């Protein structure tokens, strides 16, 4: 096959790749979007059935597109998310090459050679927008589980009907784990949830969606070069939120109320017995304190902006209820637990990226999405890339605007070192 040539190859046809495509089109930069499946492939094929976005419908302001329906406060289910992104690709006429799997990215003279299952592309600049959640993270101790236990990770789990009758242990209590625990318990399986670090959050606060507050008060716009510890900020688990029609809060107390049992962080397996950390009380205390600080920030902002008369009065949730002596062990061989589900996070897959850009932990070294070890290469659509909202449908647009400006300057031969992006300002 002949090698095709373009100025910019965007890898990934999700919200990040499409937002970048729109920004490149505005700048008349010739490009192509390579997508291994169809637009929104991860949403289409790799998520559980009941998932709805954690952000409300209105909060999906992409460059040149946004929500136009009559339910701005609702939360998109997967078919709606896919339809939204399909329509976005259409509206912006994104040059998507579907069913094109990238197998290698290498340097090639002053640019890059992209190898795919549909032939090669040569380009001067490349945007890595293949997503932050390609592989389910599963801790090494999973290998020590007794053979009679069924295991699923967060990409294999679809719905409770997959599960053998009987007890289920969900490991992880962020948005994914708490949603699994909730629907599996309601489907009649006794659920135990293993709780490590997590961030508790009310769905609705003072009558408005928590995401509305975080957006309005500027929490989501906080920049990567302003936070105290960006490495830690990028590793923070997702808020314990769920998108339901009733706008319900799904915290550990809500799970406790329907009978889910809380245990500490999964710490080890010894002789068929699961061991849990004795730190559950502190994990919950830290999460309660963290939530308190977020709500304090919101209350302060509301007062300063004269909203106190307009919205409900401040309130606080009850502290997380932890039983006096939570169990530290669980027999995995007596049939009580039939299935273990790992909801222990996700990681990106860069197995095809043959560039010298990785740190010792396999993460891409970058400065707000600019790969300094690979000039002309950019990263987009991962947690806290440039802002707290970077991984959100609503947040990737500002990052795409910033990075497309940098990319254009790089193509023009300007010194990218002089490049300064002002916070959140879109080019006219």
């Amino acid at each position, binding site marked *: 096959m002949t090698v095709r040539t373009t100025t910019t190859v965007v890898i990934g046809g999700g919200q990040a790749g499409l937002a970048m495509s729109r920004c490149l089109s505005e700048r008349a930069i010739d490009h192509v979007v390579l997508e291994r499946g169809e637009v929104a492939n991860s949403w289409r094929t790799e998520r559980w059935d009941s998932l709805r976005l954690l952000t409300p419908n209105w909060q999906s302001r992409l460059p040149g597109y946004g929500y136009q329906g009559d339910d701005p406060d609702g939360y998109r289910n997967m078919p709606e998310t896919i339809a939204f992104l399909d329509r976005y690709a259409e509206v912006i006429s994104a040059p998507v090459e579907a069913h094109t799997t990238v197998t290698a990215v290498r340097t090639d003279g002053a640019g890059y050679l992209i190898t795919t299952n549909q032939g090669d592309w040569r380009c001067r600049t490349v945007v890595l927008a293949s997503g932050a959640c390609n592989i389910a993270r599963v801790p090494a101790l999973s290998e020590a589980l007794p053979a009679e236990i069924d295991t699923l990770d967060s990409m294999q789990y679809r719905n409770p009907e997959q599960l053998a009758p009987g007890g289920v242990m969900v490991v992880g209590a962020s948005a994914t784990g708490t949603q699994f625990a909730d629907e599996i318990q309601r489907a009649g399986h006794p659920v135990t949830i293993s709780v490590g670090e997590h961030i508790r959050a009310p769905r609705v606060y003072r009558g408005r969606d928590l995401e509305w507050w975080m957006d309005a008060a500027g929490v989501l716009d906080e920049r990567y070069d302003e936070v105290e510890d960006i490495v830690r900020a990028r590793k923070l688990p997702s808020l314990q939120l769920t998108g339901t029609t009733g706008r319900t809060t799904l915290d550990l107390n809500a799970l406790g109320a329907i009978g889910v049992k809380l245990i500490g962080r999964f710490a080890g397996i010894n002789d068929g017995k699961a061991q849990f950390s004795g730190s559950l009380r*502190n994990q919950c*205390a*830290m999460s309660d*304190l963290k939530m308190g600080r977020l709500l304090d920030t919101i209350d302060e902002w509301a007062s300063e902006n004269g909203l106190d008369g307009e919205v409900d009065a401040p309130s606080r949730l009850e502290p997380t209820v932890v039983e006096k002596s939570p169990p530290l062990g669980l027999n995995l061989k007596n049939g009580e637990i039939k299935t273990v589900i790992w909801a222990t996070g996700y990681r990106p897959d860069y197995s095809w990226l043959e560039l010298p850009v990785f740190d010792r932990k396999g993460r891409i070294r970058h400065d707000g999405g600019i790969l300094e070890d690979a000039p002309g290469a950019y990263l987009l659509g991962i947690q806290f890339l440039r802002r707290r909202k970077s991984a959100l449908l609503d947040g990737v647009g500002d990052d795409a605007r910033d990075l497309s400006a940098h990319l254009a300057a790089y193509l023009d031969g300007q010194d990218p070192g002089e490049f300064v992006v002002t916070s959140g300002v879109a080019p006219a």
Partner: protein
Amino acid sequence: MAESESTANNGVNVEALLGARVALADAPEAAKFTWSASCEWKDGTFSQSTVEGYFGLGENHKHKTTFKFDADHPAVFASEDRGATPVEYVLVGLASCLTAGIAAVAQNRDIQLRSVTSTLEDGMDIQGILGMDSDIRNGFDGIKVSYKIDADASQKDIEALVAQSQKRSAVYDIVTNPTNVTVEVN
């Protein structure tokens, strides 16, 4: 830290600790420490342990002084009470680790401490160590730590200090999580 003027002084060199974090990020091997102690049986349940050297930052180090710890059991165990019991040393380790952490975190958050005191209690059913009931564990059935802290900070900020100290404490981790122990006879 650099951009904010620090006013609190708890006697913790936070700059050095933060500097070490930056330096060790580029040289993770140097972060590997080995702590050691030696122990000698004296008589009855009385033993004496010694702590003098440790390994870290790629080399061996010596404490300024050699520290000795006497351990024994009290009269109700038909012993002579020549030192604290081993389980009390565990409480000592936990208390001092959490307390050091509180001072360091307070310094980093620019909180002036005036006094930090704590009491620790563990529950233990000695039917376990006496081999009377295999359903009862040898060790603690729980540890309760109570802090009294006087500091220039709100109650919430003090709670957050104590929570963060637990999150970063080595001894807290050792007592709350399982650890492989290998005992050899040479």
